């Protein structure tokens, strides 16, 4: 294991075929940082309408705030979902966005007997959208989501927008 230092750097896209011929890439699922009910993880395969309904149900049931987490390819989906929720709420909802970078590790399984397993570390950008009830009666101070502590490398400037 020690003889094979882990490869670093982003996933190369151009020489995909060359990569495939040398080893099989096994991706590890990214870590779920918080599995409470009001944390929703958006993937490229999850059904958009179902997740929208899930968010609306959660908010209508009295949850003060929900967090949408999305990573990489599904960031646009997450943004669309957040905007759709806010558009449909007639100004009752506001949001705050955090960005972060998530470290991911891929296992590279060899194709010939002499090699050992190696690793590839790469980073992926992630977005954590907090959607909260913008009620007049309880003044909510939007805080940074607490669950991003362990996986975040650097928190870029948090933006806060009020609608």
């Amino acid at each position: 294991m020690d003889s094979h230092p882990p490869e670093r750097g982003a996933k190369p896209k151009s020489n995909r075929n060359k990569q495939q011929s040398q080893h099989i890439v096994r991706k590890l699922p990214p870590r779920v940082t918080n599995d409470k009910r009001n944390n929703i993880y958006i993937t490229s395969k999850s059904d958009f309408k179902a997740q929208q309904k899930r968010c609306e149900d959660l908010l209508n049931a009295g949850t003060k705030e929900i967090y949408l987490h999305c990573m990489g390819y599904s960031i646009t989906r997450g943004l669309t979902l957040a905007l759709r929720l806010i558009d449909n709420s007639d100004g009752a909802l506001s949001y705050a966005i955090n960005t972060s970078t998530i470290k991911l590790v891929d296992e590279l399984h060899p194709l010939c007997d002499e090699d050992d397993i190696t690793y590839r570390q790469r980073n992926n950008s992630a977005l954590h959208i907090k959607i909260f009830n913008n009620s007049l009666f309880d003044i909510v101070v939007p805080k940074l989501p607490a669950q991003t502590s362990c996986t975040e490398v650097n928190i870029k400037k948090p933006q806060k927008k009020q609608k």
Partner: protein
Amino acid sequence: MSSQKLEYDASLGGHVTLPSHVATYHYASGVLQEIKSMIADAQFPASSKLIFQTLPKHMRRRAMSHHPKRLPRKYRAAHSSQMSKAGNQPVNRKRPSRKYRRRPKNLLNEYIRRQRKINWLETHIWHAKRFHMIDRWGYRLPYASCDKTYRACYRASAEHCLLQDISFYSCVQMLGTVDQLRHGFGRLTSPDCGLGIAARTYLSGRREGTIQLFADDQYPAGALQSASFMWRPAEQPETQAQRTLWLWLHPAAVEATLAQLIQVFQLKSTKQEKLPLPAESDDQTPRFVTHTKAFERNRSYINKDTGMEMLVLNQEFNRFRLTGPRSQCVLAASLRASRQNSSESSTSTSKKLLDAPSDLLDQTDYCEAALQLHSPSEVLSNVILGVNVVDPRLQRPSKRTKATKLSSSVSKSVELLMMPPASPPFSDLWDPELRVRLSEQMMSTHQYNQLRQRHAIVPGEPCAFEEQMQPLPLLLIQRPGSQQPNYKRLGYAAGWDVIAPARYGMVLWQTLIMWGARPGGLREFDSVARELGVDQHLPDTVAGLEQAARTALERRTRYFRLPPNKRCNYRKLAVVSPFKAPWQSLVRDWNLSPATPAKSFYVMRNRGLLQRLDGCVRHREPFPDCPTDNCLVQVALRLHTRGSLESNALICLPSSLDWKRHWRQLKQDNQEPVHTEPLLSDVNERLRKQLRLDHKRLLKRLRARRVREKRRLQETSTRRVHIRPAKTASLVSKQSAKMCSLWLPTDPAETHDSVRRQCSREVFGYVSSAGFSFVEAAVCGVGYVTVHGLRQLLHERKADPIRAKGQPLLCLVRNADSRDYRFARLQINLDLCAAV
């Protein structure tokens, strides 16, 4: 010669002389005859009396002939055999009372009797109370829970923890040098299918590997099974000494695989050994004595020249399979590492041996840290962890509770993945003597309960004696689950396998169940494999062939159990093989050169070729040219709109008409089937009707004949005459066989092109397992198509300009009992056996 003497009164007796002595052998031969006849008389008495009639008068009882218990005990067996020969059943055939049967001794005897024919797992009685049990592969195995748990088991495998007992996998231990094993297994497998047995990543014993086994030098044909294996970690690294290897074989193909191993490594059974006798003189030819062992606990084979050894470890281990992300929590809750004495001895020695850097965790700490992670898929895939745990009985909750994640979650999953533990997973389980001692010294549950009763002052609190219970060595093996992120949920069905020594099965099982694991049976293997999008047994393996034959028989019997108006007429539906997929005829019909002699079909396992085919399907690369007659490719199918898919459905090539219709339907949002098979006429229908009428008429005529005969006899007789028995059984069975053959289509093996052109669309594949997949929220299936059919499909796609780029590859599917063709998305499976 004996001298002749005169008798004392020779004057009276005349010339009669008697010999002075008798030769002993004459005497002995005479006596021998006498003894023989005496024994024969004693054994088979010539008297025609029954046993109870031979008793002296004072021992006779009135009801003796009816009631064997009235006889002295030593005559009872003979009496009952006499009675049964005479046709009189003894009266006392009543089932013994439940109270008698449930006495521990009688119950145990009954259990032992029932295990004579078929093996039981250690958790058998637990399962038998809750599961439907079926006989499979020489074991009595749980099929599915008596409760309705199909969806619950899926949820457990996706979100919680599904627990299955796979102790029926048999473990084969091989002992030899690495070179011998590499060379031998090189003949049984092929480098095309993946890593070999002696790959560097497996050789250290840190990871479990999987190889595809084939019959000796018959690759790609003659597939046996895919087997997982693990190497025993070497005590001293870098030695040429003998290494130990465990192969875990599926019970369906154990015997076939063992036969191949014996042939390849030239092993001999040690059950009969020829031992040379000590030579008395040098000139003698060496003499041998054959020494046969009456009982062998584990079958063992040996090659004296090379020193190879093979040992079949049947029922030496319990192997439990935990599936699902929460299996971490269940394991973490039920296994507490035992550190009492091991902390000084084992870890220090291993550290001395390997001179490992101090920042690496030792096995126990590593295992504990790994079990704290969120999901099993975050650990290195197929990693083996060896750990000594305290007796699992001490770790049970008072009530059945769901194991939850501990609050202090470690965040160093990356470090844990990249840093190996300080030592490879040494375990006591590898040592046969320690295994025997473990199971001998295990405290039985009864003993444990009695001790608790005596010592526990507060119920539920730990006792002092519990610290003295022996620790239990376990091996934990990670399974990575689904690894195709582009079309499956990443890491679905990830989990752990737990290997425990014999006798500890029930103890560990109950603890895991108490921590909220959901028990599953054989049905869950199928459903998890289907959710994963792979096939459990490939159709050319031993297990696959056996399974196909069994399901075909089941379907056939079910079909003929239905009343005729509920059976679907496969001749009208143009389905030639309704109960099993005719792979052999399919590849015969698709072979380019039909003159070649028919070889058996096989499934393509060559990863490079599969990747190139996948490139053709996904990225429209040119089709690779390869020698691919008789070859099937595994594909994953997925229906988009309505429709269901069952196993044994047909996969067909769409025609240009279908494409037009497809586009029109897409525009109109029309969900009807793309094409409906026109009904054929059944030529046998009239034949069957005629046959049935004739048969009925014949039976009626025979009965009338018997009635007439009876009446004629009655006229002359004074007593009442009964009608003669019909005795038409052979006639009826012949008729039903004929009727069955008229119901079913002709066998596809007989005529050429019968499978490929059986219906209005060309058939190029069959579905092997299908159903609704909860992961995909769609009807999914796994099927096999011929390479030439796939080539034609791709060629037609290229020729068709309408189909826009980026559209997935589509094919037509039709269930065997339906006329509707629907489009399904087709994708090539690269990982053929991720489920095993």
